[in-house]
């Protein structure tokens, strides 16, 4: 079993104005493993993800990917390591001026020198993996339902065979059956293809299926982190409250 640390975060801090969002995050993800971050809405999960992929510049701290601190990298080097990322944004972030397949093939056409028809072929395969048929490939993304948009976005994020996936709520807005298909797809990526995963979800049943480890974010800190089978005996009141969905204290 590989114990190489793919992502190492130390004492990461970020505030917007006077509002402290991340207050000293420490996290490790081993190569080929997937970490699911849970936490209340507005606790800063998406901000953490954007810090790691370099869209938000943290105030202080260390983010190492493959042993290299990426925060201080100049733009072109950061772009080079981004090639290996597959990112799913919480809102989908599909390009609404392009059709479905052009969205999925976007990264392929941008990075590899392949022609459009080959790219389309790959895009159709990826769309099939997320349960979308060829008929939707030529539609405009604005004409899709919310769940379909999420799946197109998912297909786009895995189209370029990434080494590291960052999914922000991949199953939100999907029906239970589709959610299970997506969970299986994520598991296939991380367990079978050896992709490292950083995933955010609110859905505990999904988290149990896709995670190797789970971390809980609360008030800008990771208050609990451990293997997925330990979550029921975490001994942490906040975690217990979150996974059981109770409105009573402490959160």
């Amino acid at each position, binding site marked *: 079993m590989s114990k190489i640390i793919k992502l190492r975060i130390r004492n990461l801090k970020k505030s917007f104005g006077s509002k402290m969002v991340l207050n000293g995050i420490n996290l490790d993800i081993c190569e080929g493993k997937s970490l699911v971050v849970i936490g209340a809405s507005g606790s800063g999960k998406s901000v953490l993800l954007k810090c790691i992929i370099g*869209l938000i510049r943290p105030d202080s701290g260390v983010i190492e990917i493959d042993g290299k601190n990426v925060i201080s990298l100049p733009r072109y080097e950061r*772009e080079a390591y*981004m090639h290996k990322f597959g*990112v799913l944004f919480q*809102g989908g*972030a599909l*390009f*609404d001026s392009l059709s479905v397949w052009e969205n999925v093939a*976007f990264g392929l056409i*941008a990075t590899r020198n392949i022609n459009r028809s080959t790219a389309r072929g790959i895009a159709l395969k990826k769309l099939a993996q997320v349960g979308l048929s060829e008929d939707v490939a030529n539609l405009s993304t604005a004409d899709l339902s919310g769940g379909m948009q999420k799946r197109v976005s998912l297909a786009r994020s895995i189209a370029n065979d990434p080494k590291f996936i960052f999914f922000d709520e991949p199953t939100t807005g999907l029906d239970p059956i589709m959610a299970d298909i997506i969970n299986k797809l994520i598991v296939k990526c991380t367990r079978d293809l050896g992709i490292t995963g950083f995933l955010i979800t609110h859905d505990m049943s999904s988290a149990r299926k896709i995670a190797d480890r789970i971390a809980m974010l609360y008030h800008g800190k990771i208050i609990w982190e451990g293997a997925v089978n330990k979550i029921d005996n975490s001994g942490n009141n906040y975690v217990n409250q979150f996974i059981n969905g109770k409105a009573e204290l402490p959160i």
Partner: protein
Amino acid sequence: MNPLAAIGRNFITFLASTGRIVLFALSIICHCLQPPLYLRLILRQFIEIGYHSLPMVGMTTLCSGMVVALQSYTGFARFFAEETVATVVVISMLRELSPVLTGLMVAGRVGASMAAEIGAMQVTEQIDALTTLSTNPYKYLIVPRIIASIISLPFLVLIGDIIGVYGGFMIGIYKLNFNAASYIFFIVHHLEKIDVIAGMAKAIVFGFLITLMGCYQGFNSRRGARGVGLATTNAVVVASIMILLTNYIITEIFFIN
């Protein structure tokens, strides 16, 4: 509230945003000079900015050419009416009216739509998504628009020149009963190369300014429908003011020697 403090604060904000716009413009120019350039996107922007603006530019310059002919006739009818009208129409259209009106109309049409489109993309994280798909948003979104607009604006102005002068000609012939042959003679006689060149130079600068402001406001749009709406308004207002200011400066450079 101390009124002096308010004035000072606004002044500092103004200076800060001027600085940001200048930096933004410089980085765009750098990106324009480095490959890759997306030819497909440049072509699409040509159609959007150049071709689709034609009817509007044609209408505007036709009407203003006609109006200038009419007004200069009422003003100068006692003197050599034919020559004066031809001269006034040619000079005012080529030097000022065609570039400025084209610039303002394109700012309203194209600058606004750029700010709205890019602002909506910013708000829905599409620009972040571009970055994660190894595409530089400056190169993908701004550079094609800049290139297309600084090339198509001069053509629009040239077409505007022709249509405007033709509008004056029509009024001269059909309404003021001038002799067509001598009117054309006066037009050609008073057509100076420098007037055309000055108009083109203005068009290039205006094209750059319109796209610069459209993209800048879009990129810095605040969240929500209100933010995008504000970005659109700012893009048009600021671009229009900049057009009028730089128009004066360029006129001074070209004609006051």
